[in-house]
């Protein structure tokens, strides 16, 4: 709370939110990738492509098999 008698500047700070990339830290990434149904199916790969695209990471679905080797 700002002191009502204080007439100097106030630093307004706004957070960017919880990071999705942290959610995909090695620990969580392992859980995420392990739970994809049949990851080697075409649909599974493209759903993963959408998931990573959402956080700005571009992946090639055709070369995605290595993801499940973690």
């Amino acid at each position: 709370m700002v002191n009502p008698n204080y007439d100097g500047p106030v630093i307004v700070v706004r957070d960017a939110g919880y990071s999705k990339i942290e959610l995909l830290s090695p620990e969580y990434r392992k859980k995420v990738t392990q739970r994809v149904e049949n990851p080697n199916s075409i649909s599974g790969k493209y759903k993963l492509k959408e998931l990573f695209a959402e956080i700005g990471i571009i992946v090639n679905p055709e070369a995605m098999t290595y993801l499940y080797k973690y």
Partner: protein
Amino acid sequence: MSTKNHIIKIVRTLHLDDLFKSMKECWNDPRGGFLIPVTVKLTDPEYERYRHLEINWEISPITKDDLPEEFSPQAVKTVDMFRRKTFDLPYECMILFDYETGNIISCNFSDDFEDKVESEIYPEFLKTMHIASIHNHPRQYCSPPSSKNFQMLGLEFEEFELISSQDELWILKSNEIIFDDETIAEIRKKSDEYFDVAMDDANNQEGYHVLDCQNRCYGDMLLNYINKFDNIELIRRYLDG
């Protein structure tokens, strides 16, 4: 560009060198002098940068129905343009604006890809204004407010805090009382707890549903919790991309 460079540029552009020389002569010998008061407006480089951000016309507009009834049509336009300008930004931007006139008061960017944006505000100059802020959560961040996003509850001059993300608009309203530090700390602590609970819940989902479930579960819990407080209102609006 530094303020000093701005002033030098203005002096050269307006050929004020001669004016300053004549003022010096006037000060040395004020008899018969003619004093011209000059007002200099310095352009805020960050606002200039905001003005020139590319506008995304592909996304759906924000209308008056998405915003509190206190927002004027000009303020609705300010919010709509903010979302269009920041929709594709990979970093944060924040503006403070008057929700009655729609005028932008300040503008700041988080240049170093930090997970926060800061602005130095002099509340003394905002006493006659009705202040709201809006900042964006880039696509690599979750939509709902995080535990660090409740500073406005302790600020007297700010009445609305808006958060614009890829598919949601969050509105935090608290324009009647100022909350003490302990209450704000409790809200932040609860937010972190709900986030952890939502994370556990999300991890029971199929892989590609984790992030979606995390966003939705945490947002639902936050809405239920915050709206139990008197004098605080948290609103979530779903938007089309």
